[in-house]
């Protein structure tokens, strides 16, 4: 694998002509290389961020109809709408005026100042207030559970690949592929029905009891934890399978690599080969999938939050969509996209730290 990436490429402009082309003279220092890698990734991140922000701007404009049309067609069901009403509604909903370029500038200003206006549904609360109230719940729930699922799934995947052909392989693989086929909302409905309604083990909705007010006291955190068990369990059950299968597959292909055979021939302990040789290399592609799968987990959490009435970002997005609350919807979509982008950027950086080859 490394043989195809011959000697490290020197920076041609830097190396003065005529010097002996030894590797030491032509290779920039490791620190400089790391900095270059970070700079490249940062530039790409900024570009992607800009593109995502622009997609969020273009999306409503590419779609047929405007929010005002939707509101007007609702009104029109009750009788004809006068021109004055139409103008009033358009003004109230902030139908964009001016050409597309000035709209874009105004939008970018909104994004930079995080001012997304007033929500239609939860009038007179601002979109910013709603989002910042919902964000902590989703961040803690999805973030924590995803990391737990990744670690657990990866370990099971290593085990399955190492014990290939035994029950330690077939049971996690089969159960994993069955569980990963579970729709998020169905797992949520089942847990809610059996653990919530039938056995009455856990509360059936919300993130905290009806009498509690959010603060950082021990009682409140305990209450929040208690309410979070079922949503967390749903995400864990549904996302675990994917990690097991992913790790198992990459691990199987690294086990076939020559360096593993070489390690075996050298008489290293099986455990050492499995963990320190094969698993260490197999985890790299899985780390990339981790960043990408995060988007899927965030998507799944929308369904989970809807079922459990859990007041996070997903539940808010669902409410915004149902009530055609376009400002809230746009802000939430941007929020979700940017969070996933940042997570992916961090994974990229981590990848560069773990795998020196990518820094070249």
């Amino acid at each position, binding site marked *: 694998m490394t043989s*195809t990436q011959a000697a490290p490429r020197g920076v041609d402009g830097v190396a003065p002509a005529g010097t002996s082309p030894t590797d030491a003279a032509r290779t920039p220092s490791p620190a400089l290389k790391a900095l270059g890698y970070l700079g490249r990734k940062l530039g790409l991140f900024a*570009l*992607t961020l800009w*593109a*995502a922000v622009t*997609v969020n701007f273009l*999306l*409503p404009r590419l*779609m*047929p*109809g405007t929010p005002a049309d*939707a509101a007007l067609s609702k009104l029109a069901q009750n009788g004809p709408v006068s021109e004055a009403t139409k103008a009033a509604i358009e003004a109230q909903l902030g139908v964009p005026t001016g050409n597309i370029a000035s709209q874009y500038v105004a939008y970018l200003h909104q994004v930079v100042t995080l001012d997304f206006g007033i929500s239609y549904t939860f009038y007179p609360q601002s979109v910013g207030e709603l989002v910042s109230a919902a964000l902590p719940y989703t961040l803690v729930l999805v973030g924590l559970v995803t990391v737990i699922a990744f670690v657990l799934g990866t370990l099971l995947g290593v085990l399955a690949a190492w014990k*290939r*052909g035994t029950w330690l392989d077939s049971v996690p693989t089969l159960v994993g*592929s*069955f569980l*990963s*086929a*579970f*729709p*998020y*909302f*169905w797992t949520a*409905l*089942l847990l*809610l*029905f059996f653990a*919530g*309604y*039938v056995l009455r083990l856990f509360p059936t909705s919300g993130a905290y009891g009806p009498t509690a007010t959010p603060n950082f006291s021990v009682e409140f955190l305990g209450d929040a934890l208690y309410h979070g068990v079922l949503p967390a369990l749903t995400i864990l059950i549904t996302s675990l399978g994917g990690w097991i299968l992913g790790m198992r*597959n990459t691990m*199987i*292909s690294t*086990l*076939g690599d020559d360096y593993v055979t070489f390690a075996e021939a050298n008489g290293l302990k099986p455990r050492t080969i499995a963990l320190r040789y094969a698993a260490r290399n197999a985890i790299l592609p899985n780390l990339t999938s981790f*960043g*990408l799968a*995060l*988007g*899927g987990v*965030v*998507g*799944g959490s*929308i*369904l989970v939050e*809807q*079922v459990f009435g859990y007041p996070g970002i997903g539940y808010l*997005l*669902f409410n915004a*969509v*149902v009530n*055609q609350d376009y400002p809230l*919807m746009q802000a*939430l*979509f941007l929020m*979700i*996209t940017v969070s*996933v*982008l940042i997570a*992916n950027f961090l994974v990229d950086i981590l990848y560069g730290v773990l795998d020196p080859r990518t820094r070249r």
Partner: protein
Amino acid sequence: MTTSLPPTTAAIRAPLSPAGEAPSAWKVVARVASTVWSNGKSRIGLTMLAVFVLLAIFAPLIAPYGASETGFDRSADASAAHWLGTTAAGEDVLSQLLYGARISIFVGLVAGLLSTVIAVLIGLSWGYVRGFGADVINFIVNLFLVIPGLPLMIVIAAYLSGGGIGMIIVVVVVTGWAWGARVLRSQTQSLRSRDFITAAVFSGERPFRIVFRVILPNMTSLIVGNFFGAATAAILAEAGLEFLGLGDSTVVSWGTMLFWAQNSNALLTGQWALLFAPGLCIALLATSLTLINFGVDGISNPRLREGTKR
């Protein structure tokens, strides 16, 4: 196991040999099918999928009642007349379940095929070209990969409210092709440096032919696997969107069944069959496709075939 080895070597040689000597398409399909069938997990998956497809095709003959036929007792428990009970609107759950299979299989098939075609076209040409063009595609694909699929689907579906199944398929394809394109690109990149591609280039083949007649056959298992993966994702996404009430909620599908079940408080009335059955069907259908993929891996990678030790 040894009998299933020849297909791979044949598949690699086939495109290089003159058209007349290439094995017929039917022979290739038969070999691929037997390779997939030889894997125990795939065999279970194929059998499950076949049952679902048959149930969907013959739904009008098997179903005891019409899908939207109302007028029975509302929210009834299971009985001899209604094996899985009735919905809150007085429809037969079993009949809805059978007809619902049609929507899921249709969406899986169409959306899976469309996103695979896009992934193949983009992934292969992207893997073969070099320079600025590749960088631009790289950026676009990464953008589509990183933007979370379901939230994007939900937002698009909200703007296109009431579009029905067609809208759902479009949304699923738009958000779902990028993963396959990326996987196929990396494989194309690794194949294009192999000797047999260099040989094809020196023998004066045009790039189009090299990409689609020489490289493509070597990626059969990836492409087939991508199809099943995309179909699974499409089925789950369709059910999710309909569960949120973002599709056409008058269509009888597994997703809308659960949407109505939740909205009519089936949790409180304790109708577990209404909650359990549609979700189980979605899970089983998706599992069958995942299981088939275990055998698909073996089409062009003998290492992954069942029973072969590493």
